[in-house]
């Protein structure tokens, strides 16, 4: 279980459910967070892009939440968490 503090001060506890060096994938679930969601399971998986020796990252999550929060939470997970992560990785390894 990792305990992370986001830049806005929010605390999130996440448990690692699976990790495979063979498939380049890991799965985790959120135990506690200030977000109004439950049964969250996220999978991060890398695929080699042989052309140009690059990397394709697929990051997906499924969770339960009240219907009125769907748009807001999808945006904060998809854009705030995943896309921001991609952008940071691209910066770190040189954008291509």
């Amino acid at each position, binding site marked *: 279980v990792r305990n992370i503090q986001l830049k806005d001060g929010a605390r999130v506890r996440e448990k690692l459910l699976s990790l495979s060096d063979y498939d380049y994938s890991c799965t985790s679930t959120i135990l506690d967070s200030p977000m109004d969601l439950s049964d969250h399971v996220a999978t991060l998986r890398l*695929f*080699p892009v*042989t052309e140009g020796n690059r990397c394709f990252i*697929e990051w997906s999550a499924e969770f339960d939440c009240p219907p009125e929060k769907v748009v807001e939470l999808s945006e904060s997970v998809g854009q705030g968490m995943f*896309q921001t992560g*991609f952008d940071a990785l691209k910066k770190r390894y040189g954008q291509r």
Partner: protein
Amino acid sequence: MKISVNRSAIIDAPIDRVWAVLRDFNSHDRWHPAVARSRMENDVGGDVVGGVRQFTLEDGVDVREQLLRHSDRDYTFTYCILDSSLPLFDYVATVRLKPVTDGNRTFWDWRSQFRTLDEGAAELEKRVGRQVYEAGFTGLRRYLAEQTERPRPPAPQRATAEVTVAGGEHLPSKAVMVAATGGPEVMSLSDVTVSAPGPRQVRIRQTAIGVNTLDIKHRRGIAPGFDLPGTPGMEGVGEIIDVGEQVSGLFPGDRVAYMNRTPGAYADIRCIDGDACIPLPEGLSDIDASSLLKGVTAALLLSRVFRALPGATILIQAVSGGVGHLLSQWAKTMDLTVIGTVSTTEKARFSRDRGCDYPIVVAEDRSPAAEVMRITNGCGVDYWVHSSGARGLDTAVACLARCGHCAVIGDRDEQPVFVDVNGLKQRSLTISAPVCFDYFEDRLYLQRIAHQLFAKIQSRMIIPAIETFPLSRATEAHHRIESRQTMGAIVLIPGG
């Protein structure tokens, strides 16, 4: 010696655009530089599992390959080599696409496993990886680029000369206006101006507009969702003139079909949400594509509203109508027995040619119950697709087999419909009242089902019957439908 080959690439196009080409197992001679000719044995469609394609490569090698798995949902297919002059044994390959949400692009993974002789194994690995897979990536990129750049033939009979100037601020157009509700005569063709598309919209020059019964109910003022004065029409086909700045994956010159919950299709030129547009495959005519709304409704009934099983029996009311004639053909491709009701012997003949095994001619006030029971040996039908509102719903329920399902389609009627749940409980019957737009809020589902429709039309498994009218004669088209003279679908052609 066992060999695995894996190549992958990122294609700078949305996944639906890439999959629209790749999903056809028989498309390689259009885009793969190594493939000279490709054809399906027995003329089966390029998405039929079990189908066999014959390739002739540019170097003269012949290959026979069989489609083992095909999924529009997962954007993947798997195939094997049956015969080849190359030493490729137990060759099984999989193509898989994944959406790259960052930039709306496509990840394409192509991999295979096979056995070969120890000698020359490394060379064969390179040959498959480079000349088949990597050359395919390059070939498809070029093909997609050509599709976008190719100059389009000018649209026939443009209303005015200014219309040919694409991308201007305002374009003159003609639209059918309904000022007050009433009979067909309340519709008139008016001059309008269409301003540039909004940030998420595209502006389309339409070539075919499907007429639906909902248009008639809007015009008569008996269905909600239509404001006066207004332009009716829920679907259309055309060519994109220009696109808003936030639209990705659509380009001027693209041929698209759309369906939309908000009316406004009866026009030469209009703006529409980019999200609503479905790019058309090459070779599909604009007129055939204008059966989109009716075709996907048919597919929706058979796959989501009830899950039609092979061998089951379906009754389709008004089987010669716009939805009915597509539904009967689609049901036949799923091995259902199709019973249909029609009002004339001419319509019965028409329906028999379009997959209806047992057309029943029913006079306005008569019930087809006795005939339905005779055809089904007293068992009743598994599915009943009901389009006449409250009228005859008790007959529908009486004709259902145990665990049968009645789907009440068509648009909300003036008549309230009451359902006796205790009556349903006697034989575990279910009734649904599906509205297709609710199901197609899920855009991915719509795109998947539209691809299936277009593929079935292209492989001639479904042949839409379409009568065309110039847009200027929309009044006449409505008259024809309301007097129940039509068979198949009616499509309006702008610019006439």
